[in-house]
Each structure stands twice: as structure tokens, then as C-alpha cells.
């Protein structure tokens, strides 16, 4: 059965697009059939992060408005053939999307893919609303700082009230992905600790992605980190998160740099919803 997963955060710049691409690639590497949709109409980035910017002909707006067929707009990744991208339009704005049209596109994708990952734009306006509207499950991307946490909290409230699943009385599944985390800085009190964030947001933890220059490098060359440098800490964090999404039980760790002491990684229990 296919799952529609929205990657959202409220705040901008916390790593939604990077996480969408990396989780999508990691799920595809695990053998799943995955499509990642860029909902950030007008400010599209996902194509760059996934290295497909030269292959975009048709986009989500064309498909929603019926100007192109889905098969024409989908771009299959050259490195992992179970990974596809549905890019956003750079020349239009969010008003070009309609709820009915997006619903139709997602319904069609459900028949073709195991995972439909919706990369939400920042904010709480129409684009973000449409990205979450038809989702079954959400990954809430949060940085360990107070403004990001508060925005995530706001988004969680919307996931519980504005999605179709929630409106029909269903329980919406939400997971926290803590990104740009530095255990050392948290220990010095320069950023929130994992437990502080979990206490405030009260949703289960999907993974902790360390702050890493590897991620920047991967974005710059247009290759999701799980493909670009699978051995890096950040890539392993995303791979672990993807396996947890597939139902595997993997002990939580913060993938911090501890040279020579990898066996002493901190274990951490995932919080219950």
C-alpha cells in the first residue's frame, strides 16, 4: 500500500528539501518505489538538490492544470532507478495549484509508487496546506532552536486539523526529524537538547541528523547525501530514519563525531506519541 508523506516544518531553511531528497533516496535504495514532489512552486529547489535541473520540461503545475500527463513530468533518477522527481514550476506561484488538482495527481501517483514524498514550502499558507492536505504521515523537520520548535508545534497543530485524514477523524502519524544537531553545542547549552525538543513537541523521534559540511557538499553537487557519501554520519542518520519508516527497530543515536569511540554512541529511546 502506498504512503503519502509530507516533509514539513513551518520555518524555512531548516532542511526540508535536503531531508525530502535524502529520505527519498534512502527509501529508494532500500528497494522502495519513491517519488518526491516539490510543492515549492515559484521557489523550486528540489531539482537542484537531486541534480535534475537540466531535465525539467513539465512540472507539477502543468500536471495539475492538465497541460501535461504525469508520465511526461516525472523525472527518473539516473543513479537509483526506483527514485523519481516531480518538479515544481519556477515561473508560477502557489495559486496555480488547486486542491482538486493536487488530489487528483496524488491519487494517480498512489497507483504507481510505494512512497509519495511531498516536500512542503515554508510557511503556513496555501502551498504548505496543499502539501500536507492528502498526506497519511508527516515528517516534521526541526532545528534545535526555539523559533524552529515553535513553528514546528504550529505545523503539528495544523496536521492534526487541516489534513483530509484528520478531518475524517483519522489519527495522523507524525515523526520528528531533528536536523543540524550538534551534541557538543547542545552540551554547552548553545542549542536545545534532544530531550528538550521532544518534551515540547511530544511526537515520536524519527532521527537525529548531525550538522555536517558533507550535507552542503552533497547539495552543491546535486546528489542526495545517502548516494553521495553513504558512509558519512549524516547519510547514516537518514538511512536509519528511512529504515524506521519501513518499520525496523533501530536504536536511536545522534551520529555525532566521536573518533575511535563509535561503539560508545549514545543510545536514546524514541519518545512515545
Amino acid at each position: 500500500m502506498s504512503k503519502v508523506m509530507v516533509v514539513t516544518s513551518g520555518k524555512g531553511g531548516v532542511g526540508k528539501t535536503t531531508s525530502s531528497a535524502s529520505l527519498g533516496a534512502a527509501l529508494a535504495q532500500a528497494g522502495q518505489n519513491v517519488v518526491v514532489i516539490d510543492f515549492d512552486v515559484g521557489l523550486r529547489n528540489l531539482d537542484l538538490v537531486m541534480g535534475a535541473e537540466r531535465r525539467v520540461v513539465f512540472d507539477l503545475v502543468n500536471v495539475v492544470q492538465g497541460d501535461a500527463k504525469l508520465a511526461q513530468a516525472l523525472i527518473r533518477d539516473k543513479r537509483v532507478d526506483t527514485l523519481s522527481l516531480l518538479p515544481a514550476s519556477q515561473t508560477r506561484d502557489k495559486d496555480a495549484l488547486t486542491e482538486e488538482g493536487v488530489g487528483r495527481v496524488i491519487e494517480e501517483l498512489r497507483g504507481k509508487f510505494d512512497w509519495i514524498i511531498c516536500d512542503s514550502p515554508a510557511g503556513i499558507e496555501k502551498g504548505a496546506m496543499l502539501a500536507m492536505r492528502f498526506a497519511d504521515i508527516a515528517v516534521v523537520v526541526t532545528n534545535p532552536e526555539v523559533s524552529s520548535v515553535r513553528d514546528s508545534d504550529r505545523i503539528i497543530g495544523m496536521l492534526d486539523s487541516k489534513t483530509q485524514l484528520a478531518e475524517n477523524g483519522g489519527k495522523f502519524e507524525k515523526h520528528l526529524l531533528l536536523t543540524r544537531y550538534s551534541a557538543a553545542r547542545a552540551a554547552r547549552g548553545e542549542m536545545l537538547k534532544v530531550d528538550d525538543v521532544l518534551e515540547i513537541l511530544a511526537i515520536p523521534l524519527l532521527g537525529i541528523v548531525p550538522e555536517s559540511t558533507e550535507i552542503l557538499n552533497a547539495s552543491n553537487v546535486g546528489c542526495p547525501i545517502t548516494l553521495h557519501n553513504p558512509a558519512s554520519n549524516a547519510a547514516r542518520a537518514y538511512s536509519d530514519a528511512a529504515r524506521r519508516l519501513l518499520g525496523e527497530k533501530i536504536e536511536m543515536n545522534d551520529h555525532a563525531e566521536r573518533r575511535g569511540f563509535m561503539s560508545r554512541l549514545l543510545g536514546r529511546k524514541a519518545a512515545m506519541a
Partner: protein
Amino acid sequence: MTTSTISPPGISIRGRSIMALIVSPELPLPEWLEGLDEQMRRAANFFADRPVIVHFPATLEESDNAAALLDALDDRELRIVGVEGIETALLNGTRWARLPKLRQGRPLNPDTRTDRLIEIPDDPVTPTAPTIEPAAPAPPAGSLVIDRPVRSGQSIFFEEGDITVIGSVASGAEVIAGGSVHIYGTLRGRAVAGIRTGAGAHIFCRKLAAELISIDGLYDTPEHWGDGLHGRAVHIRLEHGALKLSAFD
């Protein structure tokens, strides 16, 4: 000419936020007034003694005669304390000319829900034929229990009684109760109690990290109560016209 050396008595002016009902008539006005009459037949005391602000529709034309509309509302015993969304000149020369124009108020926008929509509760239906049975006692003051966290941006409004939250109230969220507020979690947002019961309301929270607390219109912010109570289980009440916070432990 005498020079007075006696200084005038100090005037103390205090601020208080109250809740006003915002009534926004829609065009065409005769039909809207009919609808209002119908609503008021079903809920006779809803507007009794409540301040009302009239929000004029943007499409109001001069021919619609704003003063006549205000007269019509006044005839229906609405206590108009202010108007918004109207050109000042339209009311000059009428008995409404001195009403405060609430320009600083937020624009009324049903989509973004900046203002709270209030359901007008129907009066209990009274049987037309007299019955021998004594009237059923009024239902006890209600209580609203929320068994999940109140998220940032959410506003829980329950005028009929107490609100109990099993979970935390996030920064940027608000809980507003006619009676008392009980929070079994961390209060990081706003808690407002006593909208209806007034000074008798209390606020309880298991962990205080609030942005604002208020009982009966008196409010307080963290810079006032200081760090000593931060993170502790706290009871908040009104004593001698002032908010009093005390820790349980």
C-alpha cells in the same frame, strides 16, 4: 489671581481588556436584520449587557445609511460601544457621531480567523403548553477537557466553564475559559480565566513557563513574576484586586 499650591489629586487610570462581540452586518441589510431577529428570538439574552462593536461591510454604500443601521441595532437592545470599517464622515450629524472608531482593531477576516467566531447558543426550548412537571434544572456549568497538547497558534475558547488540558500549552497558543483553567503539563502560552465568572476563577499549571496569564481582565507577564516560579507547579488567583502566584512545592 491666586496661585494654587495644592497639587491636584492623582488620577489613576488602569487598562483592562474586555471581550466585545463584533457584529458584522451583511448586505442586503433588510434580509440581514430579519436573520438577526430570527436569531434573537431563539437566543433572547445573548446580547444582554454585552458590549457590541459594529463592523461595517466594505461594500457599504452611502445609500445604505449607516446611522439607520445603528438605530436599528439599538432598537434591538444591542449595546453599541464602537464601530469599525466605516468613514467617519458618514456618521457626522447623527447621534452616533461620537462613537469610538476602532481603527486599530484587526480587520475581520473569516478565513484567517483572527477573530473568534462565536456560536450563538439557542435558548432552551420551552414547551408551548404548560406542563405540570417542574422545569428541568439548568445543566451544570460545563467543563471542557482537552486530552492532547494545545499547539502553537491554536486558541481554545470555552465560555461556559472550566478548561482542563491534559498536556502542554505551547508557546503561541492560548486557552481562554469562562471559569478556571487547569493545565496538567507545561504552560508555555497564554492562559486567560474568568471571562464569565470573573474574580473567582483560578489558573493551575504543573509547570509555569507562560507568556501571559490573566484572570478577570487583569494580566501579568513573566518579566513581572520573575524566574523564581519558572518551571514550578503554580496556582494563580486574584487576591485584593491583584494577581497572586504561588508555587505548590
